[in-house]
Structures are given as C-alpha cells and as structure tokens.
C-alpha cells in the first residue's frame, strides 16, 4: 500500500482554507445518518466527540475510565500555545509554525504544522467561551507566559492545571451532548480490537470492564484518540493506565505505525527513589522560566546546595546556550542533564539529579510572586520529595513523558486504513522528532475541535445511504472470539511472575538500551532481550481472578502483552534511523560538542511500519518530508 499524505496543493498559508472549501460536505439533515465511534475521552477524544455530536453525527464515545474527566491530558500543567500575539512581542501564525517545525528537528510534516498554528488561535477563543478560567491580567485580559523553544510569550495557562481545565471544558461540552442524547457514552469500556473489512475500519470490539462482557460496535468511521505509549518504559510520567493497546491492535489490523522511536524525555521530573517506584512525576517546564539549573562544579562536592557558593556552581545551560539559557527545548535540556549526571556531578542521595534553583527568583521577585506562579507545583514537589523548594533547590532529572510517534495519518488525520482516524498523541503528525512545551494540549484540541470535524465529512459524504456493517457479520464475530480467547489464555497461564514484575523488566531494558541515548549495540541487545521477556510473559505470568468481573490484573496483562510486542518495533525503528534528531539520540551520530547530528540527506522521512506478524520483521514504508517554508538547518539555541 503506497503512502499518500494527501497534502493539498497551493501556498502553505492557503492549504487549509482551500482544503476546507474543496472537501465534500454532509448536509445537516444527513449527518444523523452517520455513526462515528470515538475511542478515548482525553482532550482529543472528548473535543472530537462533542464537536461531531454538535454537528449532528451519531457518536458513541468509549472510555476505560469511570468518567470522561480522568484521561491523562488532565495532568498537563504548564499551558497551551497559541499564536495570538496578545503580548505584542512578535508572534504570528508563521512564527509558531516555524518554531514547531524547527523544534521538531525537521521531522514533522510542514502542512500539518501550519494548520496547527492557524487553528491555535481558535482554540483559545473556544476554550474561553466554554468558561476555561485562564490566568488574567488585572485589566481582565488573558495573561501569557514563555515556554521552552520559543522567544515569545504565547502560552496561555490556568495556574499549574491547564490540562485539567481544558479537559474539563471538553468534558463539559461532551456532557452537554450526552444529556441531549447525541452521544452514547460507554465508560469502563476498553476497546480491544479494531474491526476492518476490505481495509476499511467498520467498528471495534470492546470489553465491559465491570462485567467482562465482550461486544461489538459498528460505525461508519472509527476515531482513535487513545494517547501515547510512554509506559512501554514502565517508569514514565504517564498515568498508570496509559497504554498502546488500541493503537497497537489497530496496527495489527493493518494501520501503519510511524516513528515509534521518537520519545520525549522531559527534563524536569522528580528523580526516581527506589524499586517500588510506580511512576515518575513531572514538574512543569514552566518552572524553567524562573528556576536556574545547576550542578556543583566539583563532582565530589557533598555540601548542601545552599552552602555551595556561586563560584562553585555550574549553571551549565546558561553557559552552553546563552541565548536560550534555561529555556532550551526539552531534548537538549534532557541530554545536558544526562551528561552532567553521567560525568558524576549528579546531586541527591542517588546522585541522579540536577538542581533547579529558585533562590535568585525569590530574591528578585519575592516569595509571593513565586508562590502565585508555581505554588501548586512546589506543593507537589514537597509532598513527594519531602523537601521545601522555597528553601532548598528542587532536584530534577529527565523522564519519559510524551511520545511523538504514533499511528500514521494523512493530512486528513486518516490512517492508511480507510475510515480510521487517529487524533492527539496517538498519531504521529505534528511534532516531528521533538515536541515543544505547551504544544500537546494545542494539538489534541486542534485535532478534535477544528480538524477532524471538517475532514471526516469528506470521507462520510460518499457513504450516504449505506448502513454500518451488522455486528453479527463474521468479521465482528471473529474479532469477539479473539478477544475472549486472549483473556482466557492470559488467565490460564498460571505462572509465577506478576504482570508488574515483567513490565518492570521490559521497562528497564527499554530505558537502558533505547532511552535518552541509543547505540547500535544497545538496540541489538534490546532486540535480543525483548522476545525473551515476551516468551517469559506468555509462559510464566500469573493473572488471578476471572473474566466475568472487574479484574484489573487481567486488564493490565493485556496491555503489557501489547507493550512486549510494541517495544520491539520501537527498537527496530530506532535502529534503522541512523541519525540523531530530537527525542532520538544515537550516540554514534553527534557533533564534537555532543549535539544531535541529523542526516537530512538520508533520513528526512517518516518511517511508517507495516505489521507482518509478531515474530516476523515489519515492513518499512517511507514518506519523504519536504521543507519548502522552513529551510533545513541545524538547530541552534546558543
């Protein structure tokens, strides 16, 4: 199957406008004849489900949570970007577009990014109209702050809880549609199979997590908004339930998986403390606006941070990147921290962190200002680390946070399988090899509120008059049998190891061999280790309980089983990409100064993988990337 990105013709700035005009429409009276299944109710899923229902489509929204207000979008702290230029500091749609393409290390599709920048301004308008309580100036106007990778202040925020407020806005819009009867909402329901017929998505098979019942849903289109796969590393800042299952099972039905090796390691997380650690906690990147990052110059310095004089501190980001300083993009800040720790200058009991110091900001601005800006983040930190950041610098270290890769989609956000749309973090399209801060919320809402509602009409219009495939068709029955059989198999192994134990082992292999730094040898090691862990899982995992009631171990086992297959694809992708770019750092490919060395000649493409079987090598398809507006250049933040 050839990859066609369906990028519209015409000048960059006109593509989206022209495309909207040229796309077929479904008339208002006919929209109710189409059924759309939306899987996932985070920012992308909830905004898409609400908007499609407002337009008149029949929507079924599925969430494995108990309510659509829980998805991990809710944990995003810092903010959402938009090219509003309210501060009058030189921002524009073109600049946001430029920053995002450059920040993504020239591995994103220009046309998608431009559209993202265009609709960013509508998102802010939409959210304010819904009542999202963004921070305000005293005159009642919206406040902005700056974020990594940008030299303008374009980030809108609601204290340190921006993701929460945006998700609640989308959730409330969705709740309104539920009450109007336009959305059928299925909570505690997990999608476990995508059903296709003739390379067209026709429905999904789900499991009711309370009763264990397996059932099919049929629709004219299926929308996956199921988030990222960071938990393949076991320890990440993702929520515990975040997983790759929906995307992976769609991949096994033929949907291509693009750029899985692009994983973002967030520079400011609380360092791990012990083996029992169940997850890592992120401290918003916005802290880098006022916090200064440093390590002691002398690796043996065991003094308390407050006793280390200025002369003995190395503010390494300010030293190495004077123009951007502490606000360099995430990948650069992360690798710089790794370098300090690897060279023995790490701080804290396990010497696995660097300091993020607010001392200077508190002296300059006063404690109340810092409290107003970051109070809730400081509280989170104190709760976990048992240290007061007003007095002692925070200790931070990078952790897996976001995944730029995802299912391949065209300009319309449709995968290579017709009728399958993929939104938000679950797709690959807008962030290239590295996502800038405050851009995930922007992309999730752009896809759900302003892109899919236009593009899905063009797919549905020609289907007018066709009914969704009946759920007693053999393709549905076969998929239901597969889901039931998978549960039965997991429950019957009755081995000796818990699901978490094996997941932790996988995570360790992934982090050590395919984490912040990757080499040919480490990837080969991971590729040798993962199948063995998978074998161990399928012969020696212990899943207790039954299939007929709430069984969280069984749910978890199904998700870890998918990570055990997916991890291999991630490493395969990392191995074939013999260059360093953004979140993918191959140690063999770096400049003399230790910066990522891209190879635009050979690797300016999207790697889209086709599934051929669990123990069979996947097929690589390439979508070449063209950079017409933003010229390929080495990123420099000096």
């Amino acid at each position: 199957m050839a990859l066609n990105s369906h990028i519209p013709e015409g000048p960059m700035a006109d593509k989206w406008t022209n495309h909207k005009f040229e796309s077929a429409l479904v008339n208002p009276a006919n929209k109710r004849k189409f059924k759309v299944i939306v899987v996932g109710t985070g920012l992308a899923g909830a905004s898409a489900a609400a908007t499609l229902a407002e337009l008149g489509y029949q929507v079924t929204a599925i969430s494995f949570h108990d309510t659509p207000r829980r998805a991990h979008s809710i944990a995003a702290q810092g903010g959402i970007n938009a090219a509003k230029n309210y501060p009058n500091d030189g921002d524009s749609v073109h600049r946001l577009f430029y920053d995002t393409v450059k920040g993504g290390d020239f591995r994103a599709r220009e046309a998608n990014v431009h559209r993202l920048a265009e609709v960013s301004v509508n998102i802010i308008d939409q959210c304010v109209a819904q009542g999202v309580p963004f921070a305000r100036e005293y005159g009642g106007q919206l406040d902005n702050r700056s974020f990594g990778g940008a030299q303008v202040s374009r980030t809108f925020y609601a204290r340190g809880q921006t993701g929460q407020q945006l998700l609640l806005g989308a959730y409330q819009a969705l709740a309104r549609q539920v009450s109007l009867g336009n959305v059928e909402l299925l909570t505690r329901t997990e999608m476990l199979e995508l059903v296709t017929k003739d390379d067209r998505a026709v429905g999904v098979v789900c499991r009711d997590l309370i009763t264990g019942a397996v059932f099919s849903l049929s629709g004219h289109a299926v929308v996956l908004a199921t988030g990222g796969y960071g938990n393949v590393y076991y320890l990440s800042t993702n929520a515990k339930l975040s997983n790759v299952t929906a995307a992976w099972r769609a991949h096994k039905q033929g949907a291509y998986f693009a750029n899985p090796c692009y994983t973002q390691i967030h520079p400011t997380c609380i360092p791990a403390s012990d083996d029992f650690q169940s997850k890592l906690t992120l401290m918003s990147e916005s802290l880098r606006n006022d916090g200064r990052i440093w390590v002691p110059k002398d690796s043996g310095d065991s003094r308390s941070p407050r006793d280390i004089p200025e002369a003995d501190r190395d503010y390494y980001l300010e030293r190495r990147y004077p123009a951007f300083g502490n606000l360099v993009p995430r990948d650069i800040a992360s690798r710089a921290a790794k370098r300090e720790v690897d060279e023995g200058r790490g701080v804290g009991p396990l010497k696995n962190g660097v300091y993020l110091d607010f001392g200077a900001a508190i002296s300059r601005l006063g404690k109340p200002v810092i409290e107003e800006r970051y109070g809730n983040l400081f509280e989170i930190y104190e709760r976990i680390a048992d240290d007061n950041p007003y007095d002692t610098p925070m200790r931070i270290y990078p952790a897996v946070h976001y995944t730029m890769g995802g299912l391949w989609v065209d300009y319309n956000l449709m995968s290579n399988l017709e009728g399958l749309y993929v939104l938000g973090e679950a797709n690959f399209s807008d962030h290239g090899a590295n996502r800038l801060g405050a851009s995930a919320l922007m992309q999730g809402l752009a896809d759900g509120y302003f892109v899919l509602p236009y593009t899905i009409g063009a797919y549905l219009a020609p289907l007018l008059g066709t009914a969704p495939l009946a759920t007693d068709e053999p393709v549905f029955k076969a998929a239901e049998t597969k889901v039931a059989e998978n549960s039965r198999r997991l429950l019957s192994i009755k081995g000796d190891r818990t699901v978490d134990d094996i997941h932790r082992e996988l995570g360790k292999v992934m982090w050590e061999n395919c984490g912040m730094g990757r080499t040919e040898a480490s990837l080969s090691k991971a590729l040798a280790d993962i199948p063995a862990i998978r074998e161990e899982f399928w012969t020696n995992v212990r899943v207790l309980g039954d299939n007929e009631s709430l069984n969280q171990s069984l749910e978890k086992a199904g998700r870890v089983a998918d990570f055990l297959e997916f991890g291999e694809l991630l490493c395969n992708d990392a191995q074939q990409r013999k260059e360093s770019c953004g979140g993918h750092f191959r140690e063999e490919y770096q400049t003399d100064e230790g910066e990522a060395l891209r190879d635009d000649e050979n690797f300016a493409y999207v790697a889209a993988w086709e599934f051929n079987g669990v123990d069979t090598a996947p097929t690589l398809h390439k979508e070449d990337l063209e950079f017409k507006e933003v010229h390929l250049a080495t990123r420099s933040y000096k």
Partner: protein
Amino acid sequence: MSAPKMHIKVTAWRQSGPDAPGAFKDYDVNDVSPDMSFLEMLDTLNERLIENNEEPIAFDHDCREGICGSCGMMINGVPHGPERGTATCQLHMRKFNDNAHITVEPFRAAAFTINKDLSVDRSALDRIVEAGGYITAPTGSAPDANLIPVPKAVSDTAMDAAQCIGCGACVAACPNSAAQLFTSAKLAHLNLLPQGQAERWDRTIDMVETMEMYFGSCTNFRECEAACPKEISVDFIAMLNKDYVKSQLKQRRLAGQVFP
C-alpha cells in the same frame, strides 16, 4: 537512601462484586519505605497477594499526581487519609508511624455502588454535570478571547472552584452523603464567569435538582471541606444556596411547562 523500613498492618474491605457480601480482611505489609506513596504500599501488598495466589485488592487510580480524581478510599475513616488537601495517591507512608494499623474501605454513599473491593461507581456525579454543568458554546462560535474581559479576582475565584477533581471525597465524608461541595464548585466556576451568565439560573436549578435525585441534603457539617484534596471552600455552598433561591425568583420557565 536507606530510611528504615516500616511494618504496616492493613485491614482492607474485600467485596467480589456489587451484589456480593463484603468483609474486612487483615494483612501485614513489611518492607514499607517511608518514601512510598499510599498506593505504592498497596501495590506492594498486591504483589505479595498475587504471589500467595490471592486476588489483589481492586482500587481505582491513574495519574498518581493528585489531579485525575480516580483514586480515593477511606483511610482510617477519613476520605484520602489524614493529610489535609491531599489525594490518596499523594499521601506518603512517612505520614504514618511504624507498626501503624490502617483500615481501608471504599467511599460509601447510597449513590456510589461498590464495583469491587475499594472501587466504586461515581457516575452520579456525571449526571449532575450533564444536567447543566457547562456553558453552551458550540465549537466555532466563539468571539475573540480578549473580547470577554474577566476581572482577575473573578477568574481566580472561579479557578479556586474549578479545580475540583471529581473524586467524590466530599460525598464520602458527609454524614448525609450530600454532594453539595461538588455541585457548588461546578456552579461557582461557571456562575461567576461572564460567559456563564446566560444559563446561570437554569443551570443552578437543573444541577441542584439532579443532585437531589442521587444524594442527601447538606446540613452544614463541613466535613466535605476538610476531606477535599483541593481544599475547596464551603463558601461555594453558600453561593449555591444563594443562587438557588435567586433562581427560583428569576424562574423564567413558562408556567405549566414540565421538566424532568
């Protein structure tokens, strides 16, 4: 990094399904690090249970950062446990003494049926939001964001209310199982903002009346505020009461029109 390990005795509510009888069961958890979160302590217990071929304790959780609102249980009779303003996932074992005896139970309220062990069904809270906890603003219809100035104090107070995580601790803490704090937080968030004025009175009536279908009545015990992981103030309940009375006066519905 080797703070001395603690021993904890856990008495946990075990119930296999919504209609099954439940009972308390005792467990000993050794090797508890003071740096563990409460849920990590339960993870550790669950790993031991699986090793001993006993089904792990079911409990809801997800973000483990105190923001998603999934987790929540009664810890020694207090929703989310002893630390004020803290969700269960952000409670750390260093807040307990060595050899502490901790009783964990599900949130209990008539509207919260038990799914299994510590997991409860809180969907009645969604019904309240569906009744009017939104501002009608279909996608695409919004004016420029800065055309709606919102005084900073108003925005800040709306945000104080809006940070509710929907965990249900307020209901569990209330002797009447009332959901006034939850409902009032959503009402205050939307009713304070200029964008929320058009639907203010209908929203108030619809949400309050839906709330009363599922939950008990507020008699000002203020246990909800003490239990709230976001420390949302009961002042918002006063605002709810004021708006509810006003909404009756401003009732714009036609006489004889019937609403569910």
